[in-house]
């Protein structure tokens, strides 16, 4: 790693911390890997192990079960877990915006969620589908009027015409489309080929990547409370690094086991940055209005079995700004820009196959 020379040398003094990601290592998690690589965690007195997940690992469960100390997860999924008995608290809302899109062919006539009616709409499932159900509920649509198809790991179902509109993250699947070759032209697809519906613009929008902590330990465990603030500070620095050095961050993620091509990785970091920066109240600050909107959407959405994500308001312990405020304040004192008002994304050219 790059700059660990000035870090505290004595390893034993570091507090071991496990962070559970919600998917394989990729640019989406650039800030955490950057914090690790740049030695921010070490400086904060933490020995952080970043644990990737796979198809069936539910990060908030790993946290609730005490397997890890912190977990990254989407807010709506965790709301479901909290109702099922998970005792976890959102301590930092890293992504301020939803990055979920629904992508259709430009000539398909699908311009808004209302146009989903009678169409085949792709979604990943695994709890990633709630924004879609929530947005559809607003338009009076549900699984009886819209056919929901599970997408797998790639966009082939959409490219092959099996589904009319595909769920896509701005930072990943949308890029996959732009990297693919249009068999008719032999060239890569361009943005003009698609219409894009962003859930951020619908009432279905829900909060995504947040850092979750163990509620009980937050209440009773002083060391954990202190470590939490230190952890958040390091994470923030990591994300600032990613915002300022997207190319380096992309390389760091690649070094940590991500296998995407360079241009795709860079695109991912850049688009992820866009979901974080600028952060009006400082990175990670939980906007109560946004959180309430997410709760409202989670209460309204019903999936094809008629099950709602949650049936009642989550408890007050579901989120707290206490730690992120502390972290932000301390960093601000150090003169660090925690809002990224001047943030400008770079331009990334996606190469064929994301190479």
């Amino acid at each position: 790693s790059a700059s660990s020379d000035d870090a505290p040398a004595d390893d034993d003094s570091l507090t071991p911390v496990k962070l559970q990601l919600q998917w394989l290592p990729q640019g989406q998690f650039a800030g955490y890997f950057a914090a690790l690589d740049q030695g921010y965690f070490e400086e904060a007195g933490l020995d952080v192990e970043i644990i990737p997940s796979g198809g069936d690992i539910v990060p908030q469960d790993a946290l609730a079960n005490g397997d890890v100390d912190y977990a990254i997860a989407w807010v709506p999924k965790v709301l479901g877990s909290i109702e099922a008995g998970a005792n976890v608290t959102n301590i930092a809302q890293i992504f301020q915006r939803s990055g979920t899109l629904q992508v259709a062919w430009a000539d398909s006539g699908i311009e808004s969620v209302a146009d989903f009616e009678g169409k085949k709409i792709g979604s990943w499932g695994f709890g990633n589908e709630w924004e879609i159900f929530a947005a559809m509920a607003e338009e009076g649509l549900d699984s009886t009027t819209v056919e929901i198809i599970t997408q797998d790991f790639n966009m082939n179902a959409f490219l092959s015409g099996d589904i009319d509109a595909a769920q896509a993250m701005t930072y990943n699947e949308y890029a996959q489309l732009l990297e693919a070759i249009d068999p008719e032209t032999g060239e890569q697809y361009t943005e003009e080929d698609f219409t894009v519906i962003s859930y951020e613009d619908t009432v279905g929008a829900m909060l995504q990547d947040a850092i979750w902590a163990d509620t009980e330990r937050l209440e009773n465990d002083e060391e954990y409370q202190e470590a939490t603030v230190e952890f958040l500070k390091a994470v923030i620095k990591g994300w600032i690094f990613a915002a300022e050095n997207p190319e380096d961050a992309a390389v760091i993620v690649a070094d940590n086991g991500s296998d995407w091509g360079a241009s795709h990785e860079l695109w991912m970091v850049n688009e992820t940055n866009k979901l974080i920066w600028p952060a009006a109240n400082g990175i990670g600050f939980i906007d109560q209005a946004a959180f309430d909107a997410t709760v409202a959407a989670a209460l309204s959405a019903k999936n094809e079995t008629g099950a709602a994500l949650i049936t009642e308001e989550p408890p007050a312990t579901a989120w707290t700004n206490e730690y992120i405020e502390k972290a932000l304040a301390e960093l601000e004192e150090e003169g660090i820009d925690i809002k990224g008002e001047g943030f400008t994304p770079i331009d990334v050219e996606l190469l064929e196959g994301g190479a």
Partner: protein
Amino acid sequence: MQTTRVIAPIVVGVVVLGAWQLAVTFGGVSDYLLPSPAAILGQVADFGDSMISAGIITGTNALVGLVLGSVFGILLALLAAATRLIDHMAAPIVAALAVIPIVALAPVLNTMFGADSQVGRQIIASLAVFVPVFINTLRGLRQTLPVHRDLMTSYAATPRQVMTTVTLPTALPFVFTGIRIGSSLAVISALVAEYFGGPRGGLGGLISTSAASSAYPRAWAYVLVSIIIGLAFYLVTLAAERVAVRRRL
């Protein structure tokens, strides 16, 4: 004796389920990660309709796979038994099919046959069934006793007559053994294939969706349905096998 045979597994089941329930209720095992049998049954009751419809979707895929896989397995085995060359040609392909994990094939088949249809899943189930049916049928077709073959020659029987009078009836129990082994594989495969895309509503998709929001009692309730379907497939094919072994044609 016969009753002990029936009671023994039931006792084991009751003891295990009871211990499980007690562990969750009193033993400090969190109901969160390992839901109690009662909680699971509660979900079965609450979501009965969707359990049934999901069971029908996955069960149908498994059934189609079972039929397709059995038919192709038997047909190819007949060819392989008749022609040594075909047998040897099929050998590496069958060996590969026997070791290929569903997770590897599912995305590919979804792209080939369309993510909006059940065909990919049905093909996955049929591939899982094909292997044991082919292997067992081929073995069965080679079980014909020399004395029976000599007898048929002495009757100057036509190849067709030999096939229907001796070869097929001899092979039949083996064919059914293959189908029985394939039956529970078909259900599992059809279910697992749902994790990798395609129309929603099947058991696999609902297990993962439930688990993703920590609705574990519901997830296990769907698992329970899948076990029941798998068991039903197994028992039906077992019964068919019993009949076939006893009377053959």
